[in-house]
C-alpha cells in the first residue's frame, strides 16, 4: 500500500517476459550495498547503487518505467563486480539479475559508440584463436607505426599509455601451450584436469597459462589443453548478448566433453571462472552445463586444495594481493590464493586496504565507461603506492591490463603480475639458457642461495 500521496503505479510501458528471479523482490532495501558499491562511491546517485539498479530493473520489468537512454545508462554503468552480493544480508543474486536485465533490454537505445565497441569486442573474443592472433598482429603493427609516427608530437596521456602498454606484448611470439597438448605428472596422476586458456589470457598472458600447467603437473595432475575450447562467454553475457553467450558456453562444454573424462575444468582468470560457475543460470535445464559448472575450479583454489611440494627457491619481493572481484565476490575465493603466496619463501605479502574494491577494469568496462573506471583506478593506485610494494598480484587479465595502464600513466615502479607467475617462479625447474624466466638474474641468484 502506498501513502495517499503516491501517484498510481500503473504499468504504462510494455512489460517484458522475465524470469522470476528478475522480479524477485527479496531485496528489502536495507541499503547495506551502498557503501560496498564502487560506482555508488564515484557517482553518488541512488540509480548507481545496487539497490537503485534493482528498483530500475523492477520498474522496467513491471512496465512502470520506460527504458529511456537515461535509465539504461545506469544499468550499463554497473561494473558487475558483485561486491554488493558480499555485502547483501538478504542474499540477492545481483549479478544474475543484472545480466538478465541487460539481456532483456539489449535492444534499448544506447549511444552508437558504445554499441560499436561492444559488438566489435564481443565478436573478437568469440572469433577462432588464429583470427584473434591475426587481428592482434595487425593491431600491434598499427600501434607500433602510430607510436613511431606520433613520437615527436605531444599526445594525450591515454594514447601514450596505450602505446607504452602495447610495447609490453609481442603478438608474434609463439604460444607455449597449444590446444591438444597433454602434460603428465611423474607417477600416477591424482586428477585429470582440462585447462582453459582464456580468450584474452592466451594471447596476452600466455606465460600465465604455461605457469598454470607446470604448477598443476607439479601438484600431480594430468593437464589436458582442451581442443577447440574458445571463449567462455563472460563478456557477451555481461553485455547482454545472451544468445551468443549461450552458444559459446555450449561450445565450451562440448569441447571439454570431447576431451575425455575430466575430473576438473581449471581456469586461471577470475572472470572466466565466475562465468563458468554461472552456466546453470545461463543455460537453465541443461544438465550437462550444470555438471560442467560443478567440476569448474580456479587454478589457485585447486592448487591450494591439492597442495604443492615445498618451493624450490625464494622469490624476494614485496607484494600486495588485489582480490579480483570475480574471485572474492563471485567465487568467495579469498584465503586460498593468500595461503599459496604466503608459502613462497622470500615473498613478503603486505596488506592492501580495500583489496576487494574493484580496480575499474571489469571486462571492457574501462573502454565503455572510462571516467568511472579511471576514478576507481586512481583510488586503487594511491592505495597501492601507499603500501610501498614493488609488485601487485591480480588473478585476472582485465585487472592486470588496467592496472598496468594505470601504473604506466602514474609512473609508479610497481609490477602487476598474475599470482601464478610468482608461484611458478618459486616452483619451476630453471633450465640453462631458458630466456623466458620471469625473474631477472639477481632474483634467481638470491633464490638459489
Amino acid at each position, binding site marked *: *500500500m*502506498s*501513502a495517499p*500521496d*503516491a*501517484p498510481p503505479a500503473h504499468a504504462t510501458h510494455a512489460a517484458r517476459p522475465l524470469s522470476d528471479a528478475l522480479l*524477485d*523482490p*527479496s*531485496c*528489502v*532495501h*536495507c*541499503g*547495506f550495498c*551502498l*557503501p560496498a558499491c564502487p560506482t555508488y562511491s564515484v557517482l*553518488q*546517485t*541512488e*540509480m548507481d547503487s545496487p*539497490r*537503485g539498479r534493482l*528498483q*530500475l530493473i523492477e*520498474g522496467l520489468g513491471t512496465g*512502470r*518505467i*520506460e*527504458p*529511456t537512454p*537515461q*535509465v539504461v545508462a*545506469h544499468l550499463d554503468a554497473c561494473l558487475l563486480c558483485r561486491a554488493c552480493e558480499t555485502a*547483501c*544480508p*538478504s*542474499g*540477492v543474486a545481483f549479478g544474475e539479475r543484472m545480466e538478465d536485465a541487460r539481456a532483456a533490454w539489449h535492444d534499448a537505445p544506447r549511444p552508437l559508440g558504445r554499441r560499436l565497441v561492444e559488438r566489435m569486442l564481443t565478436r573478437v573474443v568469440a572469433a577462432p584463436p588464429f583470427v584473434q592472433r591475426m587481428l592482434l598482429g595487425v593491431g600491434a603493427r598499427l600501434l607500433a607505426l602510430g607510436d613511431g609516427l606520433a613520437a615527436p608530437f605531444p599526445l594525450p596521456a591515454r594514447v601514450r599509455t596505450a602505446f607504452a602498454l602495447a610495447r609490453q606484448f609481442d603478438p608474434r611470439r609463439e604460444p607455449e601451450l597449444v590446444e591438444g597438448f597433454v602434460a603428465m605428472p611423474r607417477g600416477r596422476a591424482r586428477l585429470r584436469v582440462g585447462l582453459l586458456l582464456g580468450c584474452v589470457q592466451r594471447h596476452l598472458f600466455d606465460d600465465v597459462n604455461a605457469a598454470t600447467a607446470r604448477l598443476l603437473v607439479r601438484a600431480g595432475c594430468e593437464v589436458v589443453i582442451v581442443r577447440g575450447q574458445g571463449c567462455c562467454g563472460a563478456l557477451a553475457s555481461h553485455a547482454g548478448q545472451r544468445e551468443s553467450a549461450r552458444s559459446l558456453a555450449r561450445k565450451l562444454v562440448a569441447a571439454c566433453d570431447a576431451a575425455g573424462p575430466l575430473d576438473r575444468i581449471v581456469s586461471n582468470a577470475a572472470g572466466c571462472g565466475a562465468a563458468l560457475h554461472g552456466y546453470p543460470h545461463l543455460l537453465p535445464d541443461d544438465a550437462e552445463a550444470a555438471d560442467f559448472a560443478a567440476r569448474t575450479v580456479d587454478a589457485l583454489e585447486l592448487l591450494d586444495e591439492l597442495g604443492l611440494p615445498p618451493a624450490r627457491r625464494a622469490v624476494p619481493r614485496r607484494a600486495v594481493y588485489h582480490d579480483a572481484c570475480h574471485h572474492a565476490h563471485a567465487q568467495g575465493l579469498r584465503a586460498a590464493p593468500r595461503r599459496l603466496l604466503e608459502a613462497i619463501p622470500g615473498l613478503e605479502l603486505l596488506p592492501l586496504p580495500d583489496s576487494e574494491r574493484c580496480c575499474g577494469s571489469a571486462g571492457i568496462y574501462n573502454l565503455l565507461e572510462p571516467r568511472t573506471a579511471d576514478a576507481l583506478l586512481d583510488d586503487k593506485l594511491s592505495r597501492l603506492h601507499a603500501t610501498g610494494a614493488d609488485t601487485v598480484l591480480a588473478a585476472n587479465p582485465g585487472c592486470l591490463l588496467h592496472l598496468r595502464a594505470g601504473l604506466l600513466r602514474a609512473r609508479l615502479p610497481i609490477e602487476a603480475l598474475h599470482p601464478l607467475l610468482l608461484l611458478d617462479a618459486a616452483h619451476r625447474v630453471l633450465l640453462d639458457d631458458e630466456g623466458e624466466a620471469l625473474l631477472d638474474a639477481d632474483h634467481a641468484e638470491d633464490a638459489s642461495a
Partner: protein
Amino acid sequence: MTPRDPLDRLLDSFAARLGAEAVVRDAGRLHVYAGDGSPMHDALPRAVVFPRDTADVAAIVRACADARVPFVARGAGTGLSGGATALDGGIVLALNRMDRVLAVDPVDRTATLEPGVRNLAVSEAAAEHGLFYAPDPSSQAVCTVGGNVAHNSGGPHTLKHGVTVNHVLGLTLVQPDGHVVRVGDGACGYDLLALLTGSEGTLGIVTEVTVRLLRRPETVVTLLAAFDSIEAASEATSAVIAAGIVPAALEMLDAEVVTALRAAFGFEFPGGAQALLLVECDGVLPGMDEELADVSTLLREHGALSLRAAHDDAERAEIWTARKKAFGALGRIARHYYTQDGVIPRTRLPEMLRRVREVAARRGLRVANVFHAGDGNLHPCILFDSDDDKTKRNVLEAGAEILRHCVELGGSLTGEHGVGVEKREWMSTLYAPDDLAVMARLRDALDPSGLCNPKKVLPLGAGCGELSALGRRAAL
C-alpha cells in the same frame, strides 16, 4: 520551443548552479527516489537535486520557498517510517554528496561533519585518536549523520551512552525560508538542539553537525546467552538492569531472526534455544571481571542454557555483524518485512512479547523479534511474502495494533525510527489534542509556509490548519 512551467524554470536554475548532472528530473530515474528503507511508503518526487554545501542548500531552499514547492532532505534512504519521501509533489535534496568530515578535534573530543557523512565514518575518522561516536544504529555502515539527527537515532550502545541528542553539540541549520543559522555550541537560552534533533526534517535542513566523541573503552567483553524462551530472556534482562548494572548493550534476538542469520552468515544458535541475549560490558579493566561475573551469575540464575564470551575483536565483530545485519538478513526467510519500533517499560517485556505473538497469530502472520531489550525498545518485524494490497493492509494493521499495545502498557510509538508518514495518524493515541496543538504551533512558527517536509510527524486529522486553529484556541 514549448513554454516551460514554473517548476521547469526552477529546476533549470538549479541545473545552472549545480550542473545538469546534479538535477534528476525524468520519471524513470526518479522512481528510485520514491521510497526509503520502508516497504510501505513511497511517493514519486518531482525532482532530485544534489547540493554540495550549505550555500547550495540555502539557495535551493530559498528558491523552493519563493516558488512554493515543497522540499525534503534525504541521506542514504535507510529510514523506516517514510520520513524522506517527497509528498505533495515536492523535490528531494539528496545530501549524500555533502560527505566531508570537516574537523576532528582530539583535545575537545568533537567532530564537525557534513550531513551526508556515514555514521560509521565518524568513528573511523576518530579512531586514530582512540575516540569513537557512540550512537550506532544497525544501519550505521550506510546511514548518514544528517538522518541520525533528524530521527534522534539510537542503536545497541545507546543503553549506556544515550541517543543522538546526547551527543550533538551544535548544528548549522538552513531554515525553511533559506536563512542559515547556527544552533547550540552553548547551554543558554532555549535548547534548540533538543528541538531540532528528532524533528524529522520538518523544521529546516541541517547542513553541518558538531558531535561529541567518546574515548574508546579500555576493555570490552561481549556475552552471548541462550534461553529456552523469550520470557526467560526478558526476565534475565530485567534482573541485570535491576541489579544496577548498565551494560554497554543488551540486545535480544528470537529464533526466527537466528534462522535468518544462520542462512546469511552461518551464525550458530545453541540447540533448543528460543532466544539469544547479547550483553556487552565495557569500561576500565579493574572491576570488569567482577561485573562480568555478576552478569553471568544473573543470566544463569534466570535460565541461561549456555553462555559464551567473546573477548577478542574478531569474535566480537562476528557477533555484531550478525546483529547489525539482522534486519537485512530477514530477506532470507521472507520476501518483505515490516518492522515496528515500539517502546515499553522494560518490566512489561514478557507481556508485550506475548501480545505481539497473539496479534500475529490472530492475523496469520509471522513475526521475528530483534530489539534493544535493555531500554525496552522493541522491533517486531512482521514477515510477509505477497505484494497484494490485502496482505499489506493486514500487515499495517498488525503494526498499528502492536503499537496500540505499547501505548496501553505505558510506552511510546517510536524509539528511534521516527513518526514520519507511518505513525503520524497514531500520534493522537499518545497525545491529547492540546498536546499536539502545541507541536503544530511550534512547527507553524518555524515553517510558516509548511513546505519543509510536509505531512510528516503530526496527524493530518481534518487538516493541519484545523489543528493549528485548535492550538491557537488552546493557547488563548
